[in-house]
């Protein structure tokens, strides 16, 4: 027995293994077969195309025309596609292809010259500027195809149609040099492709062609990162070498400086000399080998740096002092520097020389003992300048400037970390002299250099700027005599200015400009260090005017521009100083004549510059000069504004500003200067603000008249109207101020009316003004006045709705409302100009406004519950008027009113409890509304495209009716009443052929279905009731559903939408019954009840031949399975129930019922076998195979029930018996699936036996870790150099 179990167990283990192996093998075979299939398809496709091409060629040959290539590939004859030998292929890779020039029919085409093959690119050198070169070159690019001269010539010589024009670029075709002679055009392209077969060539071309059409292949993120940021190349092959060397040098430098305990200074010097010698020698040796050139050059740089440092340290570093003479050490350092420069120049590498200098500066910075140590920096600076001038390495000089000043700053910083200012220090003058020496050296270098290319000039400009800026920064840092700043800046500025005026400088325009500007700026900047307030402005103004005059007199644009800049800055300063008048006016109205005169004088000066000088010599003020001269105009405006404010106060300030605005407008009219227009606009805004704050006197309204307001406001209005006149005429830029002035004039009058007219009659007065504006605008064709009328009419409506509506006297309510509504209706067709494009919307807006105010009046005046009825009747009246007079907007107003009515009904009327003469007001008002809605639905005029939209009214009426039922009936009756209502709507809809009524019926029926879940299914049986209310309310609803379903089956009308309403109704009916069973039957018996229902549905399906019942039966069976498993098997009592009613008995009964439906299922399968049941639901539910459902459902139930409910020892036996029985059944009905199920059940029995000896497997966890340290960077870099080709291949 044990042997048998072991054998079975072993068999069970081997079978899955064999299955997996077989599965893998099958997958491989399938893939191979698929590839072969694809291959064959490609071959067939290619051959087909070739046959088509050959046929065309044959036809052309028969027609006597020239033979064209047969295929797309052949359209580019292989003249330039030589047989691919390795040498040619390599050469071809280096050819840059030219774009195609398609030959135009009938035009002579000049052959494109073929670019010569470039010289072989030298091996990439790993310098910073060369890093990207090999990478970029290594990336293959798809270039446009090259025009073939032979073909073009052929096309030009033979007036035959050109090759078919390609809309997409062809893949790049490399051209060897020299150009190969044209080959025979009829030779297939593949024949020349290096011996490739016809098919292979076609495949390769086909593979390339889509790529060319679709553009370059999309890169993955990893590929993009590798190409965009090749970290391995940048770091390992480049930066690591440099950083490594720098670290070594600094390390040795510190080593020497800090401590070597058992070594004297001489030994240290000797040791570091040896090390530097080794580095230098090794670098020279490695530099000769191309593979290690980068490492070698960095070694050379490092060696020289260390050598220089050691020489320097022999005197200046205490721990390494072996020389007592500073002079000798300086000579030695100079010698080393000269040697370093001389040696590095041999390599003509700015990088190497720069690296050497960098390290030299570093070493000096690390070992500064006194200010005289900085002399080494001067020497280095001189050296750098010398090299830069000789080799034109101006970038090197920029580096030298930065390094020199940084070195000096570092020395100062070490003296006083918080800055030297305020602390005198003895080395001040030596330090200042050294700084001046730096500046002088680099400035002379800048002046005397020869510029060979624009780039040199750009770099030189950076150097010049850096020289001055860094000098200023360091001087400021070490400043201990602030009083000298004025003289220093003035002197330095003068020096820069003089440098700029030298003949050698003036020959270089950029240098002249730069130094002149720097000098001027420094001179200007000097004054605030000695003067303040208006004195500065005075000096600046003088200087600015002098520069401006000089610029105009000498025709030197730079001087003019500097003068304009200076004038602008001076103006800003004046405005800044004068701005205090704003604050002053906050608390005082005192007149300030002196300030006013001064500001007005300045304004006149600025206006003179801007509008006289600028106008007279306008040809020289272009570009930024023109902008600057315009800015002076604005400055004039600001100063004039402030000046007027000084001399005019209270109500007259606005008048003064308005006058200035008018002057600006007039100036604009005559001079056409845009700044004046802008100023007028800004002044208009200022006048408006001032008028609102001051002139309106808003604190004093009707009936207290204010004389000043009555005087100044009309004056302002008149000035604005005059300004509008000044701005009138052509000119786009004047449209805005023109419009603004016109509007402001009217606004002032409107506000004046609002302030000085009795509140109740403001609206009629405004309406009168609106009428006047409208008629005036219409008369004189002033569009703006029409717009103003619209706005004023809007204001009238707002005034009516928010002010008049609450008036105490009825006359003040009804009078203005009726007058204004009448005026609006009357004005509706005459409110715009005759040619206005928006006449129709304007007319609509006026009638809408009239209707709105009347509706609002009704809302305000009528009792609450009756408002809805009044609105409904009003809406109906509008419909009637529209049908009589054909006023197009009235139907839309009807819709809105109806919407408001319905909203009102929903919000108010449905909940009102009032009585009117004993009758419920709710019934009366809602009845009126419902009746009106049905009438509106009948008569309202609708556009033809949305004719059916009128049914919204019937929908609403039906909804209100249903709501009334909901309100009036008992909760349990509502669903029944809705179902009846739905049934009636359905029948009426069917009778009247009204689709929407039927839709409403479906909604009502759906609502009834939903409703039962909230009341009916949980209704209690009252004492004395024989039948549960669940039954007598839900069952009739189900009956109605089935009746409607049956009616839908008999109707020939199309189903609504893509789904079948009938099916849905049938689902509702069955759902009612299933839910009733769920709530009415004891929980454990639900499965049996549902099984009965499923059988009944199967019978219905069999009898009526409607698939919907089969679907329901299947769904219900699924529900039985789920509930049976979850509730009856795993739920219920956990203890064995005795008697047939236990869960075993219940489930057995349910299973038996399902099995009982099997014969019907087989018959249905036979009947449905040839029918198309393509809907997704049918597919999901497998309605074509019901016998499977009705077999597997009980089988699952029984199988699981045995597993859970049976004694574990009996489970296997029970499953065995079940399996045997199932196999027998399968044999009986000839169902393979049944038999397989039985077999699986038996197999399950075997598996269960094996599971008892469960195999226990344990999980294993692992992890791997790696850390690389940075001290070996140089070694890494060397290795990268050694194996760089291999690395690149791997990249």
């Amino acid at each position, binding site marked *: 027995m044990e042997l048998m179990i072991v054998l079975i167990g072993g068999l069970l283990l081997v079978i899955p293994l064999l299955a997996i192996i077989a599965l893998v093998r099958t997958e491989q075979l399938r893939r191979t077969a698929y590839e072969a299939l694809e291959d064959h398809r490609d071959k067939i496709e290619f051959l087909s195309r070739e046959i088509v091409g050959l046929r065309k060629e044959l036809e052309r040959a028969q027609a006597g025309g020239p033979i064209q290539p047969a295929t797309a590939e052949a359209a580019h004859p292989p003249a330039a596609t030589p047989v691919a030998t390795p040498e040619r292929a390599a050469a071809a890779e280096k050819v840059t292809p030219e774009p195609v020039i398609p030959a135009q029919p009938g035009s002579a085409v000049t052959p494109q010259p073929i670019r010569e093959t470039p010289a072989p690119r030298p091996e990439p050198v790993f310098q910073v500027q060369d890093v990207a070169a090999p990478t970029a070159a290594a990336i293959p690019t798809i270039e446009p195809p090259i025009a073939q001269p032979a073909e073009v010539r052929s096309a030009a010589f033979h007036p035959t149609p050109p090759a078919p024009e390609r809309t997409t670029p062809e893949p790049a075709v490399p051209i060897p040099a020299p150009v190969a002679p044209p080959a025979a055009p009829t030779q297939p392209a593949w024949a020349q492709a290096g011996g490739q077969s016809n098919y292979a060539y076609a495949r390769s071309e086909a593979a390339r062609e889509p790529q060319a059409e679709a553009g370059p292949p999309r890169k993955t993120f990893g590929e993009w990162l590798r190409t965009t940021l090749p970290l391995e190349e940048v770091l390992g092959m480049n930066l690591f070498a440099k950083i490594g060397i720098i670290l070594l040098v600094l390390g040795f430098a510190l080593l020497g400086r800090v401590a070597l305990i058992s070594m004297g200074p001489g030994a240290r010097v000797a040791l570091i000399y040896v090390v530097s010698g080794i580095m230098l020698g090794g670098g020279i040796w490695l530099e000769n080998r191309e593979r290690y050139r980068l490492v070698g050059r960095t070694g050379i740089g490092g060696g020289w740096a260390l050598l220089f440092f050691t020489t320097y340290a022999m005197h200046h570093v205490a721990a390494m002092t072996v020389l007592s003479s500073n002079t000798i050490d300086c000579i030695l350092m100079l010698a080393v520097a000269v040697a370093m420069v001389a040696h590095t120049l041999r390599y003509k590498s700015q990088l190497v020389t720069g690296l050497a200098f960098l390290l030299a500066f570093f070493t000096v910075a690390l070992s500064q003992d006194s200010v005289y140590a900085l002399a080494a920096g001067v020497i280095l600076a001189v050296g750098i300048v010398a090299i830069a001038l000789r080799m034109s390495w101006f970038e090197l000089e920029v580096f030298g400037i930065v390094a020199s000043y940084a070195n000096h700053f570092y020395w100062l910083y070490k003296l006083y970390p918080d800055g030297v200012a305020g602390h005198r220090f003895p080395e001040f003058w030596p330090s200042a002299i050294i700084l001046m020496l730096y500046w002088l050296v680099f400035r002379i270098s800048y002046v005397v250099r020869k510029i060979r290319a624009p780039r040199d000039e750009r770099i030189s400009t950076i150097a010049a700027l850096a020289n001055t800026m860094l000098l200023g920064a360091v001087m400021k840092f070490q400043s201990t005599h602030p009083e000298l700043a004025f003289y220093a800046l003035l002197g330095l500025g003068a020096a820069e200015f003089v440098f700029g005026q030298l003949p050698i400088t003036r020959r270089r325009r950029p240098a002249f400009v730069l130094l002149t500007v720097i000098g001027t700026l420094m001179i200007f900047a000097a004054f605030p260090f000695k003067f303040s307030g208006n004195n500065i402005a005075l000096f600046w103004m003088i200087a600015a005017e002098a520069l401006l005059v000089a610029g105009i007199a000498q025709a030197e644009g730079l001087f003019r521009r500097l003068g304009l800049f200076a004038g602008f800055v001076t103006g800003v300063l004046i405005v800044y100083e004068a701005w205090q008048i704003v604050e002053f006016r906050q608390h005082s109205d005192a007149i300030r004549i002196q300030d006013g005169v001064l500001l007005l004088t300045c304004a006149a000066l600025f206006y003179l510059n801007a509008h006289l000088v600028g106008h007279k010599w306008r040809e020289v003020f272009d570009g930024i000069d023109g902008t600057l001269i315009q800015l002076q105009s604005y400055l004039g405006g600001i100063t004039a504004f402030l000046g007027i404010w000084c001399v005019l106060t209270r109500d007259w300030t606005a008048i003064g500003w308005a006058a200035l605005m008018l002057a600006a407008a007039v100036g604009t009219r005559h001079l056409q200067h845009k700044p004046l227009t802008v100023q007028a606009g800004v002044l208009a805004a200022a006048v408006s603000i001032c008028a609102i704050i001051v002139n309106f006197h808003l604190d004093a309204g009707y009936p207290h008249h204010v004389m000043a307001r009555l005087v100044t406001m009309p004056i302002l209005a008149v000035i604005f109207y005059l300004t509008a006149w000044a701005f009138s005429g052509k000119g786009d830029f004047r449209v805005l101020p023109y419009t603004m002035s016109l509007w402001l004039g009217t606004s002032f009058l409107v506000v004046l009316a609002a302030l000085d007219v009795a509140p109740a009659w403001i609206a009629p007065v405004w309406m009168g003004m609106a009428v006047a504006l409208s008629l005036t605008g219409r008369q004189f064709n002033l569009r703006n006045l029409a717009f103003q009328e619209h706005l004023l009419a809007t204001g009238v409506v707002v005034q009516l709705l928010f002010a008049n509506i609450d008036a105490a006297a009825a006359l003040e309510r009804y009078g203005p409302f009726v007058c204004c509504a009448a005026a609006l209706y009357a004005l509706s067709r005459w409110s715009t100009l005759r040619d206005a494009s928006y006449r129709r919307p304007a007319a609509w807006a006026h009638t809408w406004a009239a209707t709105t105010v009347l509706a609002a009046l009704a809302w305000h005046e009528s009792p609450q519950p009756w408002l809805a009825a009044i609105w409904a009747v009003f809406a109906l009246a509008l419909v009637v008027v529209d049908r009589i007079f054909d006023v197009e907007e009235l139907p839309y107003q009807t819709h809105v009113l109806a919407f408001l009515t319905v909203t009102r009904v929903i919000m108010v009327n449905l909940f009102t409890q009032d009585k009117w003469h004993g009758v419920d007001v709710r019934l009366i008002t809602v009845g009126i509304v419902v009746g009106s809605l049905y009438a509106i639905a009948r008569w309202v005029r609708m556009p033809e495209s949305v004719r059916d939209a009128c049914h919204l009214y019937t929908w609403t009426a039906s909804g209100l009716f249903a709501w009334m039922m909901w309100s009036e009936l008992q909760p349990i009756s509502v669903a029944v009443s809705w179902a*009846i209502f739905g*049934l009636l709507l359905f029948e009426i809809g069917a009778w009247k052929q009204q689709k929407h009524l039927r839709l409403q019926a479906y909604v009502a029926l759906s609502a009834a279905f939903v409703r039962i879940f909230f009341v009916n299914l*949980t209704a*209690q049986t009252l004492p004395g009731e024989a039948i549960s*209310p669940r039954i007598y*309310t839900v069952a009739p609803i189900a009956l109605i559903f089935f009746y409607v379903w049956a009616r839908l089956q008999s109707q020939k009308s199309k189903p609504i939408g893509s789904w079948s309403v009938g099916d849905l109704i049938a689902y509702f009916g069955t759902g009612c019954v299933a839910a009733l069973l769920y709530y009415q039957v004891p929980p454990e018996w639900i499965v049996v009840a549902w099984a009965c229902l499923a059988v009944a549905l199967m019978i219905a399906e069999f009898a009526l031949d409607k698939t919907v019942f089969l679907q329901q039966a299947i769904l219900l069976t699924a529900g039985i399975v789920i509930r049976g498993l979850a509730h009856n098997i795993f739920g219920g*009592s956990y203890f064995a129930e005795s008697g047939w009613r236990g869960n075993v008995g219940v489930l057995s009964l349910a299973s038996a019922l399902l099995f009982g439906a099997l014969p019907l299922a087989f018959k249905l399968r036979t009947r449905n076998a040839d029918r198309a049941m393509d809907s997704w639901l049918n597919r999901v539910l497998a309605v074509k195979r019901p016998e499977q459902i009705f077999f597997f459902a009980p089988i699952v139930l029984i199988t699981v029930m045995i597993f859970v409910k049976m004694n574990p020892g009996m489970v296997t036996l029970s499953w065995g018996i079940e399996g045997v029985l199932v196999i027998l059944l399968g044999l009986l009905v000839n169902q393979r699936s049944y038999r397989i199920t039985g077999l699986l059940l038996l197999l399950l029995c075997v598996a269960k036996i094996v599971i008892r000896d469960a195999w226990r497997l344990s999980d294993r966890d692992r992890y791997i870790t790696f850390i690389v340290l940075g001290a070996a960077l140089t070694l890494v870099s060397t290795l990268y150099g050694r194996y760089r080709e291999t690395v690149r291949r791997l990249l």
Partner: protein
Amino acid sequence: MKRIAALAVVLTIAGVALYFAQRGKRQDVVSPDALVNAAADVQRDLTRAPMHFTRIPDSEETRIGDELAQQYVSAAPLQTAEARAMESYVSAVGRNVAAHAKRRLNFRFHLVPNPDLINAFALPGGHVFVGQGLLDQMRSEDELAFVLGHEIEHIDHYHAVERVQVEAQLKHLDLDIVAGLAQIPMSLWQVGYTKDEEFEADREGIRIASAAGYSAQGAVNLLNRWTKLHREYVIHAETPTDELSRIAVEGLEGYFRTHPLPAERLAQANRVIAEDHLAVNQPLKPFHVEYEVTSQEQ
């Protein structure tokens, strides 16, 4: 004609139903109970299988119940001798009933001295808590026996321990530590179980109370009284809007309060009594007898 006749028949039947539904002064409650109960039962059913296969041992269940009970008892200690006497009385009745439970657990009964607590609840492992407010409503010991039998059956049928398992899964509680159990509030047990579980506890509770010698009439009387109270105090919506708002609120809250209607419970009790031929004619035992005797002795 045939169609009109069919329509007439359908309308007649529906009209009659409407008439019957409208005839009486019904007090039906509009609520989402039907859906909520169904959803709760579905949820319960879906957890049955996992619970079946992940059943924790009785010893573990007892440990959890003991720790929970310790927390709750210490939160509401009995202050008076009267309360302690009442608890011993409840324990005596409960032990008598629990002797007929299927599972062999150490059932213990506790009094919650809160007159506002008209409720009883069971913890895993055999702890039953009864509120003072509920005891105040008792008219006979048979009624108390039914209530205790109901709670015992919640334990007996693993309802309580399954709730702990579900709660632990939902809140990611570690049942092995006291801190994890401390996060289970007492209110969790007071909200009741699913409709199905409540029916089950009612059914089995009546049976074991009867087996313990109590009259099933006690259960009938108690449920009858609750049915009347429910009819009197339930809030009936006056308008459709009220209905909708009540449905919305109860849909949110009611999921956790899924006790079946008292009338349904009464109907089931009557059915069980009829099917099992339980005794209803024997005289009801007076409530508090033992307490009164005990207090007189003291």
